[in-house]
């Protein structure tokens, strides 16, 4: 599978995951968004030596995976992508901070502890964002943004971009395939051909954009109106958000 097809497959797969019928999927998107933010704050405020905090957060992520019927392997695969930069940044701490310490009777250095902490934080933050997206369709996330008073205009651009990624990635894939077939033993474009290649893709994209713009105008599109799904927040949702914040704060105090 080439990377264009793989990318489209990944997007489609995430959409498939959002269609599952579980308690987590049925939660209000805004409740899940707040939980994701609380989780990230909890993670980032954990210090390097807060072992129990990290264990608790890892268990929580795995529990959510089971409740939402998201394969843990899938979650791991998606989150490992963000770790290389954290690893190299953490590696500098290993080199620059060689002071030995005993961490729960395990001989470590401060730098190594710091690197592990940075990588765990990155992993946990990526994991929770993935779980949020894998249990909430993008249209519902957009609805949550609108409830938070993110301008309709921007939310609409995000939704159109998302929908057109399929079309343009497919288009780019076809152009790339045609290029490769004409240039044996090459899997990447030559730099000198990038101008005409991307230029052509731009011209085609612009053509699509104008057609869509015209079609929207003819159907009476109003930029001041949001056409995506509208959601309303209920008392039980507010209660759930407050409860989550309270539990997180108590756990923070207990585990620190």
């Amino acid at each position: 599978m080439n990377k264009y097809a793989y990318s489209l497959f990944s997007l489609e797969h995430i959409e498939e995951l959002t269609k599952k019928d579980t308690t987590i999927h049925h939660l209000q998107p805004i409740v899940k968004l707040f939980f994701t933010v609380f989780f990230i704050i909890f993670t980032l405020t954990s210090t390097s030596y807060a072992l129990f905090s990290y264990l608790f957060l890892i268990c929580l992520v795995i529990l959510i995976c089971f409740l939402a019927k998201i394969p843990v392997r899938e979650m791991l695969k998606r989150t490992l992508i963000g770790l290389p930069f954290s690893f190299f940044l953490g590696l500098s701490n290993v080199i620059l901070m060689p002071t030995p310490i005993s961490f729960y009777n395990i001989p470590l250095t401060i730098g190594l502890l710091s690197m592990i902490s940075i990588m765990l934080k990155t992993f946990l933050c990526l994991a929770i964002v993935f779980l949020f997206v894998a249990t909430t369709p993008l249209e519902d996330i957009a609805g949550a943004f609108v409830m938070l008073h993110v301008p309709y205009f921007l939310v609409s651009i995000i939704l159109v971009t998302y929908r057109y990624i399929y079309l343009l990635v497919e288009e780019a894939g076809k152009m790339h395939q045609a290029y490769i077939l004409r240039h044996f033993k090459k899997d990447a474009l030559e730099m000198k051909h990038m101008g005409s290649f991307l230029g052509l893709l731009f011209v085609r994209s612009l053509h699509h954009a104008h057609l869509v713009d015209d079609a929207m105008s003819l159907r009476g599109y109003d930029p001041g109106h949001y056409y995506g799904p509208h959601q309303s927040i209920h008392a039980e949702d507010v209660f759930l958000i407050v409860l989550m914040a309270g539990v997180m704060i108590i756990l923070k105090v207990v585990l620190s």
Partner: protein
Amino acid sequence: MNFMMHMADGLISIPVGVIFYVVIGFLIAYAIKKCNTANLSHKVALMGVMGAFVFAGQMINFTIPGTGSSGHILGSIMLAMVLGQYPAFLSIVAVLVIQALLFGDGGLLALGCNIFNMGVLPLFVAYPLIVKPILNKFGINGKTLTIASILSCIVGIELGALSVSLQTLASHITALPFTTFIALMLPIHVVIGLVEGLITSAVVGFVNKYSPAIIEDALYMTNAVESKKASLIIGLSALVIAGGLSLFASSHPDGLEWSIASITGSTEIEEKNTTKKEIAKVQEQTSLLPDYAFKNNDSPLSGASAGIIGAGVVLVVAGGAGYMLSKKHRHE
């Protein structure tokens, strides 16, 4: 070259993330207002499809001659040159939101930082201060498009790399000194900026041959709704934010230093290795702005000034190079 500046949540602190959310919140509101002024608010599809174009464009890898490696475009400056500054900014915001949510490129808290580094700095600093003056003064042709593309891409990406360094250091994630971090980040990003500039110039050159009106419309639309004063204010604000971060970093030790303090009782680690001590001594003597501040000056304002100077130097050097090249081009 795929490691370009997407910051992950684990690499920034909460205050740094929040600061940049506030900054980009204002700039998004400003960009939407400008789009309304230019009567572009009905062009949602245009901006959305162009966002998807950048997304698709970023998937196309090209071989970098002589290195054996491959890279892809970032597209901010390219999009600004064919679509206009404000629509381009909103498209880039949409792309970064989708990348953060669906592809794990960058984090949710770090989204503000990523939009600032890859959207605000190229589009609110490099584009109005380099591309617009060159194209307005010398006209739109192959040479001016090439010069403007290369310079603005280098400046935009260098400022982004500088901002990544400042955000990471302000979050107290790494023990690397400011100067070392900068020395690691900036040279490689000059090369990335140069390659991005060459690709951008080739693409806008192609578009200009296909339909010159596209580039003209983008430039004049921006001219019509933008004032020099506004560009200058936003450019200077970016520098002030860089300085503000340094001020913040120097006054609130947390994260790594806090952990060290909890274990060793001090935020500093005593260095026993003599070679390292010697290297540190040489670095201390030669570095202009050691550890975010002026030599022998511990005041928080010294740190802030160092941040501003760091960002300013990149802008002045690249801007100066642009001016020299433009001058040479004018004489020719």
